[in-house]
């Protein structure tokens, strides 16, 4: 932004005097104008951000550093793959990204045979559309919520990491693991100013083929968005309520008071 202000000090650009409001939001406010159009430096800053986001979509998730991080926190992991063979196919065939490939199905079936006891929670990590989000925040998010669930005495299956995975792939994983509660962490589609946004989808009694109406979503988990702590608190509230009401999705309204108190700066437009 400093460069932006520096390079547009020309007579044809009308500056906006409300630049101080940028402290409240990452939105592209107070960009100024030349005639009614965007000044050159703001235009080029946008183009560079778009170029970065385009590049980020096509970067592959590095599995090893992620599993190492999870192992060192004391969690077991299982590595799985969707039916989409690569990124190009993944982008054009969402149906393939929603299902596990045969090898992964067998892997989970074998695990289940070896561990026939019941399990309550499955946590699934899918790369989605931003490997950066998963790489940066998934391990910390998983640790935060799982430690709270362990305190409640819930049993937790090994963490599944699905490459080329979409949200619905978690249903199949949870079903094969025989889990009652599904927490799915996924890289959300990268925004210009937020290439690292993690999404969380929660489902009570997941099964293959259910619709979004059965899921609760917590979006935009990243340092500049919703904090891991706040997301974790909200998720725990959803889990407790879902167990009480025996449902998730539209039947389970998020009325946790904590969720509404994650912010607090006053709206300056009103007295």
């Amino acid at each position, binding site marked *: 932004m400093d460069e932006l202000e520096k390079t547009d000090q020309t007579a044809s650009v009308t500056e906006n005097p409300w630049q101080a409001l940028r402290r409240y939001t990452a939105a592209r406010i*107070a960009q100024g104008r030349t005639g009614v159009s965007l000044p050159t430096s703001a235009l080029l800053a946008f183009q560079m951000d778009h170029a970065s986001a385009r590049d980020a979509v096509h970067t592959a998730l590095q599995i090893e550093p992620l599993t190492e991080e999870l192992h060192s926190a004391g969690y077991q992991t299982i590595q799985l793959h969707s039916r989409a063979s690569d990124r190009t196919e993944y982008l054009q065939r969402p149906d393939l990204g929603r299902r596990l490939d045969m090898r992964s199905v067998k892997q989970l079936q074998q695990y289940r045979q070896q561990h026939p006891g019941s399990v309550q929670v499955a946590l699934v990590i899918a790369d989605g559309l931003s490997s950066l989000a998963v790489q940066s925040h998934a391990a910390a998010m998983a640790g935060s919520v799982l430690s709270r669930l362990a305190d409640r005495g819930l049993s937790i299956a090994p963490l599944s990491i699905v490459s080329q995975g979409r949200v619905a792939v978690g249903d199949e994983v949870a079903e094969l693991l025989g889990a009652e509660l599904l927490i799915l962490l996924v890289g959300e589609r990268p925004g210009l100013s937020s290439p690292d946004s993690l999404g969380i989808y929660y489902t009570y009694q997941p099964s293959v083929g259910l619709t979004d109406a059965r899921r609760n979503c917590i979006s935009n988990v990243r340092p*500049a968005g919703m904090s891991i702590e706040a997301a974790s608190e909200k998720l725990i509230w959803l889990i407790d309520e879902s167990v009480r009401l025996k449902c998730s999705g*539209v039947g389970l309204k998020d009325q946790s008071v904590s*969720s509404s108190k994650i*912010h607090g700066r006053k709206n*300056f437009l009103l007295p």
Partner: protein
Amino acid sequence: MTVYSSTAGQQRWQFADLKELLAKATPLRSGDCLAGLAAGSARQRVAAQMALADLPLKTFLHEQVIPPEVDEVSRLIIDSHDPVAFAPVSHLTVGDFRNWLLSDAADSASLKRLAMGLTPEMVAAVSKLMRVQDLILVASKCRNETAFRNSLGGKGVLSTRLQPNHPVDDPAGVAASILDGLMYGSGDAVIGINPASDNYTAVTDLLKMLDDIINHYGIPTQSCVLTHVTNQIEAINRGVPIDLVFQSIAGTQAANDSFGINLAMLGEANQAARELQRGSVGNNVMYFETGQGSALSANAHHGVDQQTCEVRAYAVARHFDPLLVNTVVGFIGPEYLYDGKQIIRAGLEDHFCGKLLGLPMGCDICYTNHAEADQDDMDMLLTQLAVAGINFIMGIPGGDDIMLNYQTTSFHDALYIREVLGLRPAPEFDHWLQQAGITQPGGRLADTMPATFSNLLKQL
């Protein structure tokens, strides 16, 4: 079940039923390929268009693409069809209907009278035969005006939804984007927030905040927080100030099921919001969003192509007499609309089809970072839609939605197209902008910030 066919040169082409004919006649898009419905070759596509052109419009009254026994949207389409309104075109084929629409016989008045005589499938069918310029020309003859606290959709009016989204719904962050938008003349269609969460308390806090801002500055516009319809009904019941009720809708019952809604629920919401009588110049209270691909995305398309499913959603919308209908054209991603070319065509089709059915159409001219599209594509679609007479577009700081992670039109973009085509905001809002000192009498932005607003900055 009738078999449809056409002959080109030596080759005869056959199509098993109406929905296959419609699907094969659809200009190429990735969503129909994904569903396995697209034409297998370029020649098959044009052959289907030829067979479709010879089809009597009346066929659509006898053969349904989705059986009414299993789909309440099909039942709504049949039950709401007006044979008297249909009479002037009832003898035409789809191909002749295109000719009629482009002729001088089709003017604003005759198109308005015709709207309730048309079914979504008729309109989808004719759009598949049309070029971009046809979609623009016919749409530009339609005027679908609505009102709440201002009058939208009049000739020479281009409105904007001010979309001040913030990743955690921070009141100061939302307010910063609202101020930015107002200073650029945005917000006459609605000031509408996509909340980061569906949390009831957070949503109602935002609703109260928007209501307070609109009242405090006397802005002739309406507010909306885009949460699930059931949340909004509950809020109305608890006395929270709601101007417009929002809901995403789709063109099949099964897809609407996946959104957790049905027609009865929308009817309940419409009635509850209308009874509040919060509008000053009109009482259209519904705000719907749609987009090609939503039915397929929910695995609820019944083998019907995505553009026809989309137009069926407009039958749902018009049943509730909405203030705004917004096709969110590029949000869904490249698996449905692969690139700029497909997004542009889809946006123009949606606008044309919605207008012909009588709806106050707007468009979220947008793309995501995993689509093969960029700002140049958006400029083309914006320019074409504005020439076609679109009612409203989005307005967001710098075109970058920092909550939903996609790019849509900016406040600057709206001013660009207003300047090029001589368009203005809704008259009541236009008047307010001048009274508030945001714009000069000719409509251009003022050079300095009005004191009412610049004084706020001193107290930060």
